[in-house]
């Protein structure tokens, strides 16, 4: 073999080695996990809380991107705007799956979107991680293999407020539960209907006297007939589920038409955006209650896993950077952030480490393996998902909401008793324009 031959052989060997080594190392560098994130960035739901959920999820995703990804996988997020419309939510989900080739979908604020979108996404056999959309109808009797929700269900929200009222009936209202008049009003979408079902079931179980139950369209231009009916029903307590601006319209018209009651309990969505309620209603919003997962900034730090505390700090800092005008940090941001963090840190990490990849099936197995006790998430509750055969397959069995009361621009946890920071102010004090005089 001449010199030229040796050179050819060496050249060939080098090309061969490069060919063999190249794809492997390039593959390692290019391991990428694409997340399709869907929230309402425009339309009525955006201001009703969806925009804040988007922010919470984005803070966590960006946090992991900055850290260089998870277990060797680079993270890439593609954000889509559902525009507060279920059809757009479905179209965007399909676009993200088919065109953007995302590995999974995360988000969705409105139950009206999750109910149809979850079925469509299931058809594509894509993993879906729901950060919000609390209606039971999203998961109940649908037996999805790949859809999971950390957030407690709407029915749990509804049952908790009825329980709270019944347990405080004697002490605070001076009445037996059967003598306490309760009105249940709700927006008539999947979310409102589910929470009101929980309200009704809880009221029935506690023996409360439900004097009225009615739904309305969240886009209704006038709710004065509903207010007049409430006046006629004379409820002691109003259990209300709405988005916004229907909440502010109802409360404004209630004030103008002289509706009086002893307590009002809202159930998330618009009631979770205190700053907006305050801007619209001023001090009238004082002493109202809201049922929601606890704000991560109100969680008892000693009850949480210590490694979560710097994450909570980081979320708060990023929140204030993104929204410097914020006066009271909304619980909505924390909810989405916590639920997204559970996915990134518990599910995705486990899928890659234990099941060797980030495909839908590995993610499903990893999700079903998650077994966090109370205090295991920033929202204070644990995580364990219902298996596929269960009625509520994919639902977190350990999630629970709390009840907060807005008192002089502070949000105070008043229920359940175990997490209570202060005694609830009941009934409405005379300073409230809605108080029974």
């Amino acid at each position, binding site marked *: 073999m001449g010199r030229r031959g040796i050179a050819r052989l060496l050249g060939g060997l080098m090309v061969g080695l490069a060919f063999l080594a190249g794809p492997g190392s390039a593959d390692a560098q290019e391991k990428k996990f694409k997340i399709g994130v869907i929230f309402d*960035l425009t339309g009525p739901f955006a201001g009703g809380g969806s925009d804040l959920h988007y922010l919470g999820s984005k803070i966590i995703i960006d946090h992991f991107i900055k850290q260089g990804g998870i277990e060797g996988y680079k993270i890439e997020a593609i954000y889509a705007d559902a525009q507060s419309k279920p059809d757009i939510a479905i179209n965007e989900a399909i676009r993200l799956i088919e065109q953007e080739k995302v590995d999974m979908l995360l988000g969705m604020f409105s139950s009206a979107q999750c109910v149809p979108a979850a079925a469509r996404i299931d058809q594509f056999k894509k993993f879906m991680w729901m950060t919000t959309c609390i209606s039971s109808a999203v998961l109940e009797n649908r037996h999805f293999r790949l859809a999971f929700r950390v957030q407690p269900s709407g029915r749990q929200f509804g049952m908790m407020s009825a329980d709270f009222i019944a347990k405080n009936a004697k002490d605070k209202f001076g009445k037996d539960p059967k003598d306490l008049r309760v009105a249940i009003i709700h927006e008539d979408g999947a979310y409102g209907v589910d929470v009101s079902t929980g309200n009704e079931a809880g009221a029935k179980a506690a023996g409360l006297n439900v004097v009225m139950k009615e739904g309305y369209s969240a886009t209704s231009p006038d*709710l004065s007939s509903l207010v007049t009916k409430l*006046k006629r029903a004379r409820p002691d307590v109003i259990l209300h589920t709405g988005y916004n601006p229907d909440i502010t319209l109802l409360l404004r018209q209630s004030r103008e038409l002289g509706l009086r009651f002893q307590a009002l309990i809202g159930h998330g969505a618009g009631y979770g955006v205190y700053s907006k309620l305050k801007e619209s209603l001023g001090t009238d919003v004082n002493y109202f209650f809201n049922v929601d997962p606890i704000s991560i900034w109100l969680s008892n730090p000693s009850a949480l896993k210590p490694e979560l505390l710097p994450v909570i700090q980081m979320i708060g800092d990023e929140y204030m950077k993104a929204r410097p005008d914020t006066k009271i940090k909304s619980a909505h941001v924390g909810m989405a952030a916590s639920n997204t963090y559970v996915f990134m840190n518990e599910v995705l990490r486990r899928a890659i480490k234990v099941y060797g990849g980030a495909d839908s099936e590995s993610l499903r197995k990893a999700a079903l393996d998650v077994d966090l006790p109370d205090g295991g998430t920033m929202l204070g509750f644990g995580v364990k998902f219902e298996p596929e055969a269960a009625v509520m397959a994919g639902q977190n069995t350990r999630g629970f909401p709390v009840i907060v009361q807005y008192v002089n621009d502070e949000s105070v946890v008043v229920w359940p008793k175990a997490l209570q920071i202060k005694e609830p102010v009941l009934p409405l004090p005379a300073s409230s324009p809605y108080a029974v005089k």
Partner: protein
Amino acid sequence: MSAIFDIYLLEALINGVLLGGVLALLALGLNLIFGVIDVVWICYAELIMMGMYSMYYLYSVYHLPFVVVAIISMAGVGVLGVLLHVIVIQPLLGAAPINQLLATGGVLALLQSTATITFGIDFKNLGIRLPVIEIADMFVSYTRLLAFGVALLGMVVLYLFLSRTYTGTAIRAIAQDRQIMPLMGVDTKRIYIITSAIGGVLAGLAACLLVLQYDVHPFIGLTFGPITFMICVLGGLGSMVGGFIAAFVFAEIISVGGLYLELEWGYVFAFVFFIVMMFVRPQGLMGRRS
């Protein structure tokens, strides 16, 4: 029987009248535009939205007096009305109605998107809470009473303008016969621009009053737009008196229907009434047969 005819029925009737005032005010400008120019401004509710934003920023951010803010906002929306006519409507005056509808529909999307980008998606509120009037265990919303009064006043002023001034007479004449008036020396271009300005000012006036009752956000038009069009059609497109009557009929059906059945049934009855009337009187309550 007393359970049916109680004080709450009276309250619902009064609420219906007051809601009718709000709806009548909304329909007034739209009807004027259609009656004269023969074009439906699909984006009418979005002009109102822009007026509401103007009210919010000038009052809450720049702290100008309410009356000054109202005048500026009405004038501003009036200018928007003129711009809409000159830029979008005028080139399409001879086009098929569907093209005109699509063009104003495009302006609707444009205004919504512009508002979203410029003002954000937050609900904005003026923070003004007017007193409540209490009469014999009944409460009447002062803001709605104000809207009702202004709607009546607007109607009267518009009527006087149309019947007592030369320009008003020209506007009515064009509304009656669009082809003959240019032959009689009337400058139709000028009349169209004046009408568009008045339509815009009326949208601005509605904005001044609605902003006292509703939060403003880029999609507030969706709350009022469809019902305003239905009222205009029910009253007879272009008929201001018809629109006025239809607004009160619609509002009373919604209000009283919603009192005795679920609130949504009030709307169902109103829409069924609308459909039936379209069969019985396709030209609307006070419309002329074309």
